[in-house]
């Protein structure tokens, strides 16, 4: 039988949203929130602050003052839109390029530096009680997001869980298991796939034959859509709609945000081994920060003076965070036992004592040496 002779029993479409084109021109209806200069400025500021932080973090790693770091350069609009669309009481499950969302949600820049500086205290998030720490294993947080969303649903709370992952993560079973449950149980959650075209060295085309990643939602019975992830207005708009739909009982959504990883995978990676600089340069033209600046310049009297003073303010904030990070008091070695269980089991006390003793000897030795 030819397809014409077979009966079509289901059809699906994937839609893409772009509101600002790469020239910073409005190409769709302006969402209400974007009429406010203050709101646009807040989005712009977050992106600039995140990029300033990013450059500094890379510099800290390059000068031996921090461990491996994963840059979010070029992708700032994705997490900026997510963070701005969420309420404080919602829960974010980030991976390692969502600093812009984390900063808006109360995570301190110094905490992120501490984390990449090899210190668990960088995940204590003094001003963010709800959010999960950065997830390093790929896609394992999608099922967790479903569990968090189920807890919210069971308690009839008007809260939403938002999980962010990369394009490579959609190849993992955890991703599918999680979105499948989200659909089956109509959970208040939003899954954002940040498609930055690269899973370390493996390009998106090699990752999957699927035409879009958004369409993976269809198999889970949930809506999937694509958004220009370098257009912060579209990003904020699409994510906000998905979050508010979930909050009001409308079920989960999968959003594929199209962006590009401008930096190496991490500071331990060298992208020149597997991609041409010319491709990266092409993507520079799509830069999310340039795009909003052009819009602000054309529509809200943004100028060089404002730009300079914003950059200076962001640099000063980052400087404070860096100093705070560099002055972090050392962590006593025996504390590696202190958050293992609520109460340390007797079986581990001797090991803790040993570490404490060795730590004291070392400290004494350092002192005398």
């Amino acid at each position, binding site marked *: 039988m030819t397809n014409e002779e077979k009966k079509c029993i289901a059809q699906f479409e994937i839609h893409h949203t772009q509101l600002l084109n790469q020239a910073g021109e409005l190409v769709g209806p302006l969402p209400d929130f974007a009429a406010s200069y203050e709101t646009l400025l807040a989005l712009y500021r977050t992106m600039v602050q995140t990029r300033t932080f990013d450059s500094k973090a890379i510099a800290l790693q390059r000068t031996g003052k921090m461990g491996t770091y994963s840059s979010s350069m070029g992708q700032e609009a994705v997490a900026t839109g997510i963070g701005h669309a969420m309420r404080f009481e919602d*829960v974010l499950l980030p991976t390692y390029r969502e600093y812009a969302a984390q900063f808006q949600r109360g995570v301190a820049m110094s905490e992120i530096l501490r984390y990449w500086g090899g210190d*668990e*205290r960088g*995940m*204590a*998030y003094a001003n963010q*009680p709800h959010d*999960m*720490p950065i997830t*390093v*294993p790929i896609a*394992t*947080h*999608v*099922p*967790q*997001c*479903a*569990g*968090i*969303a*189920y*807890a*919210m649903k*069971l308690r009839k709370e008007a809260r939403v*869980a938002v999980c962010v992952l990369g394009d490579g993560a959609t190849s993992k*079973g*955890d991703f599918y*298991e*999680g979105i*499948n*449950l989200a659909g*089956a149980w109509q959970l208040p959650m939003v899954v954002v796939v940040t498609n930055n075209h690269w899973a370390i060295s493996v390009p998106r085309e090699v990752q999957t034959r699927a035409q879009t990643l958004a369409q993976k939602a269809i198999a889970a019975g949930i809506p999937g859509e694509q958004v220009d992830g370098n257009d912060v207005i579209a990003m904020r708009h699409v994510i906000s709609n998905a979050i508010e739909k979930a909050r009001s009982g409308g079920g989960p959504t999968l959003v594929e945000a199209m962006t590009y990883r401008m930096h190496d995978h991490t500071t331990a990676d060298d992208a020149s081994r597997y991609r041409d600089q010319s491709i990266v340069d092409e993507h520079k033209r799509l830069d999310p920060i340039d795009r909003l600046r052009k819009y602000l310049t054309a529509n809200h009297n943004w100028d060089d003076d404002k730009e300079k003073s914003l950059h200076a303010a962001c640099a000063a904030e980052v400087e404070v965070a860096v100093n705070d990070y560099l002055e972090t008091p050392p962590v006593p070695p025996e504390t590696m036992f202190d*958050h*293992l*269980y*609520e109460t340390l*089991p*007797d*079986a*581990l006390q001797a090991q803790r004592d040993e570490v404490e003793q060795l730590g004291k000897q070392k400290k004494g030795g350092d002192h005398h040496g």
Partner: protein
Amino acid sequence: MAEITILEAVNLALARALEENPDVVVFGEDVGVNGGVFRATEGLQKRYGAERVLDTPLAETMIAGMAIGMAAQGLRPVAEVQFMGFIYPTIEQMICHATRLRNRTRGRITCPMVLRAPYGGGIHAPEHHSESTEAIFAHMPGLRVVIPSSPLRAYGLLLAAIQDPDPVVFLEPKRIYRMMKQEVPDDGEALPLDVCFQLRDGADVTLVTWGAMTHETLQAAEQLAAEGISCDVLDVATIKPLDMETILNSVAKTGRCVIIHEAARTGGVGAEIAAQLAEHGLLSLFAPVQRVTGYDTIMPMFKLENDYMPSTERIITAVKKTLEEA
């Protein structure tokens, strides 16, 4: 008071936990309407509703992952994996997340979850339904691994596991699910975790075991008693973290030790106990420590499963071997 089986004690503890704490949620494959393939959750969905006793899609990674998410939000999830042979997809969730969440966040977010699974051989089950791989979990820092061996301990230890502020893997020895009955008062009293239970007082040799093997071990102790050999029998119960103090005190008294477990020998929990006896109790030993365990083979299908698992005879032989030494 009616006497009940281990299986019924598990059900009773789950019902008590659901009754007393609205944060308790019970879920897994076939757990709800069907009441679990062994009937451990029978009747719970009817009594506590489909919002708290749930049938999940068939996905073990997700079952563990959602339990972590629920626990992170302050629920007390009790997740079931249908057989230990299907627990392996949960390992990444357990080792990378459940066990580490408190530590990673310096106590900001915790993970009070229980992952239940029937384990062990001896029920003539198909392939992948008979393994004892508890050592995999016992190796994970931040976790508790608890194994009951009687209806009383199944009830009290499961309640303790659910009340515990940290993640617990609760392994139920399915061969003895219905083997014995005991009176179990439904008083909501938890038993202590992290401690061994003395099942029999003796002076000549210490027998250390857990799970279904307590049955053969007690049989061996009974037969040896008839020959005038007195065995101190310990049920480890919480294999992680280990209560070595009780084991060392017993060995200080007897000077001899036989460790019995169903799991493969190399890297089994018995190896850890033997190592700690060597470190902390060597001078009280009159004879080398003996291990009676499953072999370092694939758990055979059921035609050979009884040849794989420690028998009462193998335990008696090992005890006598320790007594041959002066």
